[in-house]
């Protein structure tokens, strides 16, 4: 008999909302957290807007040493991790540390610090033979992507399987999916799962500029991220992190833990098509959704809500609409599907975990978060995208999907545990 996996704790650092209450308030109210970039002077860039976190690490309990050593994206993970563990009520001192794992995703990892120190060692890009004497003391930690999972595992004294996952923009979904499989397969009883990224830096903004993937709606940042809207013109960069405590269901029930929901299905496939391009048919994403449904032993008509990747690029939103229709059939038209990237931007590897957290909260509140800024229908995107206003709805099974550069197509299914719905 296979082991079931519960979500027992959630922690969030997101633009417009640090901590679960503020984050959910933002989603439920349909406000947007996108604005002109303040972290550096974006002059010269095509897209000069982003969803930035107003994040003060000291106010969230990190000490001076943690702040100095840890890149911003790791600080997000530590703060979200603290909140998630506290929320779960788990006393880690009572757990067998070899049965506690960590699975965290990031797309670009320590890029921001790598760029910062690069500028120093290269004299502003003037030399290939960089001068190591100008490098900061923690550069090697930014270089190694595994610093993310490692730092969080050290903080919570996890000694089981610890891994950093980096599948581009599906990193967050995949990190949660890998953690789910880790517990399901019996390799751990508890897994600290999630993702984090802080990509708002000149090099990352410039590299998405170069392929015109980001929105140039610089004059109206609050309404720039327009998933599924006919006038959408790219995604708005974001940052943030989410951590979930995943736990074997009986383990959670035995200690009387609150159970937000179960994670019951996960699958991922490659599209073998293009590093950045998507097909119009969405066949591979459809396959991922079917795989997740199979694992969850659910029929497609059981899906009550689809949390979309909904990045707001022309091709993504078409692709995804086609994929969902391919699997859900006529039921797709009766199923609300929304993109929280309209509000919190697209934080690359982090967003998948933030979206899984949003799904868990949607199940808890029985509320579907909206797609902000959705005004003008696109004939090719003809589903119910929950325009601008959150909606109360009976939810028991929800689907979160994502696409990533490299062709990754992933799907995760969450549902209220039977014990809870009966």
């Amino acid at each position, binding site marked *: 008999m296979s082991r079931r996996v519960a979500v027992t704790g959630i922690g969030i650092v997101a633009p417009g909302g640090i901590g679960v209450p503020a984050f959910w308030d933002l989603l439920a109210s349909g406000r947007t957290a996108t604005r002109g970039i303040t972290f550096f002077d974006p002059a010269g860039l095509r897209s000069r807007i982003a969803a930035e976190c107003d994040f003060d690490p000291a106010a969230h309990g990190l000490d001076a040493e943690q702040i100095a050593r840890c890149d911003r994206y790791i600080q997000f993970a530590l703060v979200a991790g603290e909140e998630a563990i506290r929320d779960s009520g788990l006393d880690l001192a009572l757990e067998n540390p070899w049965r506690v794992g960590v699975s965290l995703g990031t797309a670009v990892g320590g890029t921001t610090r790598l760029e910062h120190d690069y500028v120093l060692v290269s004299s502003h890009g003037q030399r290939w033979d960089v001068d190591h004497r100008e490098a900061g003391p923690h550069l090697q930690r930014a*270089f190694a*992507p595994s610093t993310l999972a*490692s730092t969080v595992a050290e903080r919570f004294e996890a000694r*089981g399987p610890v891994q950093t996952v980096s599948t581009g923009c599906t990193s967050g979904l995949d990190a949660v999916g890998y953690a789910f499989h880790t517990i399901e397969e019996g390799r751990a009883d508890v897994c600290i799962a999630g993702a984090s990224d802080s990509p708002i830096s000149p090099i990352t903004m410039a590299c998405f500029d170069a392929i015109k993937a980001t929105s140039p709606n610089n004059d109206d940042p609050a309404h720039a991220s327009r998933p599924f809207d006919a006038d959408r013109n790219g995604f708005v960069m974001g940052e943030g992190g989410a951590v979930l405590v995943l736990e074997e269901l009986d383990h959670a029930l035995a200690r009387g833990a609150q159970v937000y929901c179960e994670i019951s299905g996960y699958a991922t496939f490659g599209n073998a098509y293009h*590093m950045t391009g998507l097909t119009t048919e969405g066949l591979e994403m459809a396959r991922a959704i079917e795989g997740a449904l199979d694992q969850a032993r659910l029929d497609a008509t059981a899906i009550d809500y689809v949390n979309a990747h909904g990045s707001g690029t022309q091709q993504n939103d078409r692709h995804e609409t086609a994929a969902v229709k391919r699997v859900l059939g006529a039921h797709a038209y009766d199923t609300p599907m929304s993109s929280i990237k309209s509000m919190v931007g697209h934080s690359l590897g982090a967003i998948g975990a933030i979206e899984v957290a949003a799904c868990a909260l949607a199940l808890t509140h029985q509320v579907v978060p909206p797609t902000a800024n959705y005004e003008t229908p696109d004939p090719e995107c003809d589903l119910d995208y929950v325009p601008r206003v959150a909606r109360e709805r009976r939810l028991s099974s929800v689907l979160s999907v994502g696409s990533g550069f490299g062709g990754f197509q992933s799907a995760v299914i969450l549902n209220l545990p039977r014990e809870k719905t009966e």
Partner: protein
Amino acid sequence: MSEPHPRRAAVTGIGVVAPNGTSTETFWKSTREGISVLDRVAREGCEHLPLRVAGQIRDFDPPSAIEERYLVQTDRFTHFAMAAADLALDDAGLDRPATDAAPFSVGVVTAAGSGGGEFGQRELQQLWSKGSRFVGPYQSIAWFYAASTGQISIRRGFKGPCGVIASDEAGGLDALAHAARAVRRGTDVMVAGATEAPLAPYSVVCQLGYGELSTVEDPERAYRPFTAAACGFVPAEGGAMLVVEAEAAARERGAPVRAVLAGHAATFTGASRWEQSREGLAEAIRGALREAGCAPEEIDVVFADALGVPEADRAEALAIADALGTHGTRVPVTAPKTAIGRGYGAAPVLDAAAAVLAMEHGVIPPTPNVFDICHDLDLVTTRARAAEPRTALVLSRGLMGSNSALVLRLGAGDAS
């Protein structure tokens, strides 16, 4: 799980691009003969840096291995990955028509720890010296850790489960284990492994912060694990990809089952806490043996992590003894990576490749440059040793604190 799994994961192909050989044959010949290729770092822009010795690939000609349109959009680490994947698939006898017939049944998983550093440095230079308009369209897909998995999937048309483990050195073994689990879950073929290219100037600067990095100038003395002269590790580039396939699927198409990925476990004991890695590595070994249904005495050879830091070497020797008991002091142990350096996530994948080849050829490759062992281990030094290993244990630890162990069994003898 002590019962053998109904969908066992077999190794049916090996592709290597390493400092001592850019084909599986040359790699094995050089590994068996114990030829060290560690050398002074000769990379433009690295001459002045305090890293003196590395394992560098000199005879790899990207245009002869990879189409130019893939070369322009990828970093060196992905060039290695695409080439190694081709070699592995050829070795497994899986050609394009075979995989095109069922694209969803072939997936890719790589481990990546250094990313596309050379490509990234070039584009950073464009940005900071000329401006954002001079950053090209491929930066967004060349620098990130997922580049190799994505490009292999696209170039070969593989639509199965695709993954990327961006963990530390031990991530290489975790990627192989990930592939084995995907096979058990129903995917017929996984192309799995790791390649790294950490020798661009800025990447080297980043690594200088590792206290474990060897900065010794003499290639013969720079990387000498398990000796009193241990002074850290030497980095390397390159790596290996393996074809991991459902045993039944391999037999059905008449492909030889060369080895079976029988057991794996991973633990974590903290970054650079080498003394604690003893307990973590021992726990990983026990877990891998348990999953493989393997008694300690069945282990015929150990491919050691061999970090080359005295405290870490001691922890590893003790972990082997803790987990294997008295057998731990008798079993032959080897670390052929002293000939080529440690290619981060790629290092244990090369060890897994060498372990399969060692079992097939009935010989345990030596540990070059290492004499006068100061630990209670039967380390195979100087010359290869004739043996008939049927079960191998591969160990890996990462600088960020991961410990991983993999049990491989020789394939043919397992035919049932």
